[in-house]
C-alpha cells in the first residue's frame, strides 16, 4: 500500500500547473491508440524529442513515470516486481521501476494498469532509446524492456560528444562527433518512418526545432531572473518547472509555460517576494537527481533561510547564441551541434584553470553569478551517471576554487528505503551551520 505524502508546496503559481502537464503526458500515451497515434518509450535528453513531435509520435517517458511513482511513494511494488526477475536493487531505479511496471502490465494483457499512479503509461509501439554518454542503463534499459515486450521494436541511438582532455583542443574534434550524431538521428528518423508508416515532414521538423531553440532561450532568460535578491524561485520549484523543457520540448505549451513563469518571476521580483523570509543563505544544487519522494526537503532548507537560486540538474539547455552554433539548413545537424556544444562550451574555460573540469567550471560560474554561499550535491546511489563523479567534483571544486561548504546528501531517486528524514535533516542542520560560519568568515 502506498504511503501517500502531502505534495510539496510550490513557491510559484506557475509550478503548481506542472502536475497537469505530467498527467497530460501520461494520459496522452493511454489515449494514443484511440487517436491512431503511435507511442514510443522515450528517455530524457535524447535529442529525439523533435523527431517524435514532428512525426506525431507520443513519447512515454519512463523517467517521468518512475518519478511520479516515487513522489507518490508507490514505487515499491514495481521495484519488487523487477527484483523478482533478478534485477538488482543497485541498478538504476528509474529503469527497474518502469521494467517492473511493464512486467505487471504485460501480465494484465497489455492494457491499462488499474492501480498505477496517475494511470501509468500506455503500451509502446516502439522503444526509442538514446544512450549518449550518460550511463549503462541508457543502453541496456531499452533492451531489457524488450525482453518483456517482445513484439516492440527497439532503436538505441547514441549522440556522443568529445570527452574533456585539458591537453586537447576539442574544437577540431567536434565536427566528427556532430557528423556521427547527425547520422544517428537520421537512422532514428528512418526507424520512425518504418514503424509509423509515415514520411518525415522536414519543414515541420525545422519549425519544431526553431521553437525548441526559442524555448531554450526563454528557459534561460527565465531562470536567470533567479539571480535576484531575494530569489523569486528555488530548486524545489525547478524540479517541477523542468517538466516542459525535459518532456515537452518542441511544443507550444512548453514555450507558453516559460513565458508565464517569466512573467510571474518578474512580478515577484518587483514585489520583493522571495522563497525564504528572510533569505539568509544562497546555495547551488550542483549535481544529482533529487529524491522524488522527499522534495519536501527543499522546504526544510527554506525553513532555515536557505534557498537554491540555481541548479545544474535539469538545466539541460543554454542560450543558443552562447553556443555559437554553425549555420546549417539540416535540422538534424542543428540538433547535433546544439547537443555537442551544450557540453563542450565549458571546455575552454576549464582548460584555462589548471586542474579544473567542465562540470566544475559550470558550478563555479553559477556560484559566482548567483552569489552562492554553499554547494549541495545529491548522490542518488542507483544513478551511476551522477553518483559516480560527485566526490571528485566536490574535491576539484575545493582545490581549484575555494573551501566553500559542500554537502553531499545520500539517497536515491525512487528507492525510498535509502532515505531517513531525521538523518537527512540532521545533515542539513549541520551544513547550514557550516555555511553560516563560512559567510561570517568571508565577511
Amino acid at each position, binding site marked *: 500500500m502506498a504511503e501517500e505524502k502531502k505534495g510539496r508546496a510550490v513557491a510559484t503559481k506557475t509550478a503548481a500547473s506542472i502536475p497537469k502537464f505530467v498527467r497530460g503526458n501520461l494520459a496522452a500515451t493511454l489515449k494514443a491508440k484511440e487517436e491512431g497515434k503511435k507511442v514510443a518509450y522515450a528517455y530524457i535528453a535524447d535529442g529525439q524529442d523533435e523527431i517524435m513531435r514532428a512525426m506525431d509520435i507520443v513519447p512515454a517517458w519512463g523517467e517521468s513515470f518512475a518519478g511520479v511513482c516515487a513522489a507518490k511513494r508507490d514505487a515499491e511494488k514495481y521495484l519488487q516486481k523487477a527484483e523478482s526477475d533478478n534485477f538488482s536493487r543497485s541498478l538504476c531505479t528509474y529503469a527497474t521501476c518502469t521494467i517492473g511496471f511493464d512486467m505487471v502490465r504485460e501480465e494484465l494483457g497489455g492494457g491499462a494498469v488499474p492501480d498505477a499512479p496517475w494511470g501509468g503509461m500506455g503500451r509502446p509501439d516502439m522503444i526509442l532509446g538514446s544512450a549518449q554518454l550518460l550511463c549503462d542503463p541508457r543502453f541496456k534499459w531499452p533492451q531489457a524492456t524488450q525482453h518483456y515486450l517482445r513484439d516492440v521494436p527497439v532503436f538505441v541511438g547514441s549522440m556522443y560528444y568529445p570527452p574533456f582532455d585539458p591537453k586537447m583542443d576539442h574544437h577540431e574534434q567536434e565536427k566528427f562527433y556532430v557528423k556521427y550524431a547527425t547520422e544517428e538521428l537520421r537512422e532514428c528518423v528512418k526507424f520512425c518512418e518504418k514503424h509509423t508508416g509515415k514520411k518525415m515532414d522536414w519543414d515541420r521538423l525545422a519549425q519544431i526545432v526553431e521553437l525548441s531553440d526559442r524555448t531554450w532561450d526563454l528557459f534561460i532568460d527565465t531562470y536567470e531572473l533567479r539571480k535576484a535578491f531575494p530569489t523569486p524561485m528555488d530548486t524545489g520549484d525547478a524540479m517541477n518547472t523542468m517538466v516542459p523543457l525535459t518532456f515537452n520540448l518542441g511544443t507550444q505549451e512548453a514555450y507558453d509555460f516559460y513565458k508565464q513563469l517569466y512573467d510571474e518571476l518578474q512580478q515577484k521580483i518587483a514585489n520583493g517576494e522571495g522563497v525564504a523570509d528572510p533569505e539568509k543563505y544562497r546555495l547551488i544544487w550542483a549535481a544529482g537527481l533529487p529524491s522524488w519522494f522527499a522534495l519536501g526537503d527543499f522546504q526544510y532548507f527554506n525553513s532555515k533561510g536557505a534557498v537554491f537560486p540555481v541548479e545544474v540538474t535539469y538545466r539541460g539547455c543554454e542560450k543558443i547564441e552562447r553556443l555559437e552554433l554553425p549555420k546549417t539548413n539540416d535540422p538534424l545537424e542543428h540538433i547535433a551541434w546544439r547537443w555537442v556544444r551544450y557540453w563542450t562550451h565549458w571546455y575552454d574555460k576549464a582548460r584555462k584553470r589548471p586542474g579544473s573540469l567542465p562540470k566544475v567550471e559550470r558550478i563555479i560560474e553559477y556560484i559566482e553569478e548567483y552569489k552562492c554561499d554553499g554547494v549541495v550535491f545529491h548522490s542518488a546511489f542507483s544513478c551511476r551517471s551522477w553518483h559516480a563523479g560527485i*566526490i571528485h567534483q566536490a*574535491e576539484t571544486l*575545493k582545490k581549484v576554487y575555494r*573551501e566553500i*561548504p*559542500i554537502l*553531499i546528501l*545520500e539517497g536515491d531517486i525512487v528507492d525510498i528505503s*535509502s532515505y*531517513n528524514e531525521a*538523518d537527512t535533516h*540532521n*545533515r542539513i*542542520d*549541520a*551544513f547550514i*551551520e*557550516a555555511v553560516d*560560519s*563560512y559567510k561570517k*568568515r568571508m565577511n
Partner: protein
Amino acid sequence: MINYFAGVDIGSTMTKVVIYGEGIRAMIIGPTGPEHRKLANKVMEEALIQAHLKFEDLSYIIATGYGRINVPFADRQVTEITCHAKGLHSLLPTVKTVVDIGGQDSKGIKIKDGRVVSFVMNDKCAAGTGRFIEIMADSLGVPLNDMGRLSLTADKPAMISSTCTVFAEHEVTNQLSGGETLPNLVAGIHESVATRVASLVKKLNIEPDVAITGGGAKNIGLVKALEKKLGCPVLIPPEPLITGALGAAILAKEIFEKYTKEGQVPERSKSGLQEAKFFD
C-alpha cells in the same frame, strides 16, 4: 563575576553535560534512555551538584546531539558537528581532521580555526560504528571494555569480509568454531570498522593532525586499527566523550558574550529544570 554555561549532548547511547565557566567546571556522562528529556534533566542536576551551582546560575545552555530537540530547558540547539569541532579545537588546537566514532554513527569533520569546513557522516549502516563492535562483543561473549586490550594480543587479524552486521556476526561465530583465536577475531572486527570509517573520512581529504572522539576513542584496538588505515597517528583528547558537550558549552559562552557586548540579552528557554514529560 563568573558567568556559567552548559552544553548538553544527547547522543544515541550516552548523554553528556559540561558546565563551563573560565574552564570546565563539571562534566557528567550518563546513559541515554528512551526518555531523553527526563534524562537530560537528571544528568544536568548531577552536573550542577558537581559544580556547586544552581540551575539559575547558568547564563546560557546549548543542546546538541541526536536528542538535542528533546532538551526543553536548552536555550538553543546546535548540531553535534559544529559542537565537536568547537570542543575539540579548545582541547587540541592543532587538529584539522576529527574522526568521531559513536554508538550508532560515525563522522569525519574538517576544521579550520575551530570552525567546520566540511563533514561526512555515516548514519545509514551500523558496520562502521560502535554498534558493530558492541554486537560482535556480545556474540563472542567478550565484555565490551575488554575488546580493545584483547585485540592488541592478536598475531594475525582475521579477515571479516561481510559488510552487513548480521552476516558478519555469522561469519565471526563460524570462524571461531573453525579455530580462529579470539584476539585475532577481535582485531579483525576492529580492522573492519576502521576500514569503513577510514574510507568515509578519506572523502574529506584528510589533513593532520587527526584526532578521534566518541566512544570509539576509548577502544585502543580500534584506535590502532584506524591509525593503520589512515596512515597517520591519531590524537585522543583527555575525555573523548565530552567534546560535543564541551563545544556546546563554549558556544553558549560565545553567543552570550556576543549579545552582552552589543548590550542585548539572548532569548532564553521558558522551561526550567523541572521534569518534563516525553510526549507532552
